[in-house]
């Protein structure tokens, strides 16, 4: 009797094991090729790039042995001519531009999103579509459009010239201001979409309750509306801040030398004046800041208990 029970239990256990094995096999058969593709064509290449940071630069800009940390002292600003703070300035400028651009997108996205969700339900999707449509055009075209708009002969620059903000015959670009405008324009939809997703599920009874308790204005907003949109806001900050920090096209086209950001500095080490180890070390810095930002905001989101049911 007990033998039979044990046999059945053993059989069941084997069956479970076989099923689990079949399941894992199917997982690797379906998800495997795509995962393998990403590992081969992105994980290994980026690992290689980071490895190059610890090599030495040859005369031709290609990396050679021996291993060294020379590229990192270059990053810290030590060169043949002694120490220079240029890299720190560039890093600070990138952080600042990304930060201010993120704040700008928040300030523009909140009214826009609340305008959309207070429209009739059948109008909302098309209004949202119109808010994100420009971001589907090519980034070079979008940025080039701002070059046209901020150039000396365009009305915007003429107005600034007349107001005495900039000297006559000069445009509003290239410069830090143009880069900020370009970044804000480029990444605004990335703030609008997660904010909209959060605001659409907003529980308005809390707002009513707040009003019944005689809260109004800013107090009402920050106590009832803001906490409910916070998960969306945090996703938006990640989606805007990280790519803005590492952006290449906008500072390249709208920035010029005095508005250089980390992206252009890195790209320069792989194109015009090759120094791969130095470029790779700079890349490592960029990735470190990216990861730090991601981890901080992910922790915050988890603390708030953001819903991620449909997330992988």
């Amino acid at each position, binding site marked *: 009797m007990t033998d039979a029970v044990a046999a059945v239990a053993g059989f069941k256990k084997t069956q479970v094991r076989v099923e689990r094995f079949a*399941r894992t096999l*199917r*997982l*690797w058969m*379906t*998800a495997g*090729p*795509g995962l393998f*593709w*990403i*590992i081969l*064509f*992105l*994980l*290994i*290449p*980026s690992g*290689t*790039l980071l490895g190059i940071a610890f090599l030495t630069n040859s005369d031709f800009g290609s990396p050679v042995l021996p291993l060294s940390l020379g590229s990192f002292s270059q990053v810290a600003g030590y060169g043949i001519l002694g120490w220079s703070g240029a890299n720190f300035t560039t890093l600070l400028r990138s952080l600042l531009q990304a930060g201010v651009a993120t704040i700008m997108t928040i300030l*523009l996205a909140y*009214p*826009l999103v609340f*305008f959309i969700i*207070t429209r009739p339900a059948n109008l909302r*999707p*098309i209004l949202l*579509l*119109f*808010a994100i*449509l*420009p971001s*589907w*055009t*090519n*980034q*070079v*075209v*979008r940025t*080039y*459009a*701002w070059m*046209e*708009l901020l150039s000396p*002969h*365009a009305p915007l620059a003429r107005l600034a010239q007349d107001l005495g903000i900039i000297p006559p015959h000069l445009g509003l670009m290239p410069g830090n201001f143009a880069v900020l405008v370009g970044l804000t324009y480029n990444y605004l939809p990335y703030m609008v979409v997660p904010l909209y997703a959060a605001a659409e599920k907003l529980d*308005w009874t809390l707002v009513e309750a707040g*009003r019944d308790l005689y809260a109004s204005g800013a107090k009402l907003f920050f106590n009832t509306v803001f906490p409910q949109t916070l998960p969306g806001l945090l996703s938006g900050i990640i989606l805007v801040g*990280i*790519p803005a*920090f*590492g*952006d*290449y096209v906008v500072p390249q086209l709208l920035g010029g030398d005095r508005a250089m950001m980390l992206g252009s500095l*890195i790209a320069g080490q*792989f194109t015009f004046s090759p120094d791969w180890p130095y470029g790779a070390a700079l890349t490592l810095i960029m*990735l470190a800041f*990216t990861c730090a930002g991601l981890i901080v905001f992910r922790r915050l989101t988890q603390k708030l208990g953001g819903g991620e049911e*449909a*997330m*992988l």
Partner: protein
Amino acid sequence: MSAIPRRIQRGLLGISLPVYLLLYTPLLIIAVFSFTPSLGHPGMNVAAYGEMLNDPQVMAALRRSLTLALSSAVLGTLLGTLMGFGLSRYRPAKGGGFWVGTLPSLIIYLPIIMPSLVFGISEMIFFNFVHQYTGLLSAGLLTMGIAHVTFQAPYVALVVYARLAGLDPNLFEASHDLYANPFKSFVYLTIPVVRPALIGGFLLAITLSIDDFTISFFTAGPGSVTLPIYIYGAIARKGSSPEINAIGTLMIATVVGVALLYYFVSRHRERSNRIPAVA
């Protein structure tokens, strides 16, 4: 929605209209400058468009862009759909440990969160090394395509996964009980269910490919100048010109047109699906 007082609603409108204006002014400026060299210049003409159509470099770049977008989107959608399907269907609901649970998600999110500059330069160096040691994969449309598939597949996987996540797992049990093997239930159950996600994912993959500049720029070779790379080079060489404005206008018009078409077709279908369900 009555929770928002009229005064604030007016304020929202007052800020939102300028924001919409801000979103479209740059695009409109390009279109205007494609017909006239400067504002207030007398006379509009379509000379720039003729110039564009007769420029063999532009036409070749356009052909390359379309070839790249379509072929990479096919492979990207295939790999992405399989990933989204496999992970939603065969991964244990809770946990699954590091190798089965966490690692696949990390790998899929890698191309999405990696700054595109780092993405592009990594691949450039990798292809460079591979070419140096094996003679394969010289920089060109092929290497660009490989890079594009790498960022398209994860997005498609997310779209397909989101679609399947809302699905009752009992449906698969039912098909299993009715003696469908995994292949049959994939063809007769999964494909019809994920079809909207499949079409959406494919269009997304095309948009991502056409939209990209940075990754293309670093993986391109001398013979694989696509439209965005051509525009970038032309801006760097000679600044703005009516011809660039004409190309830009056509690119904007195409994206806007396709997006609106997709929006209205999908809404129409949604509506015609809904009526019998109500009746």
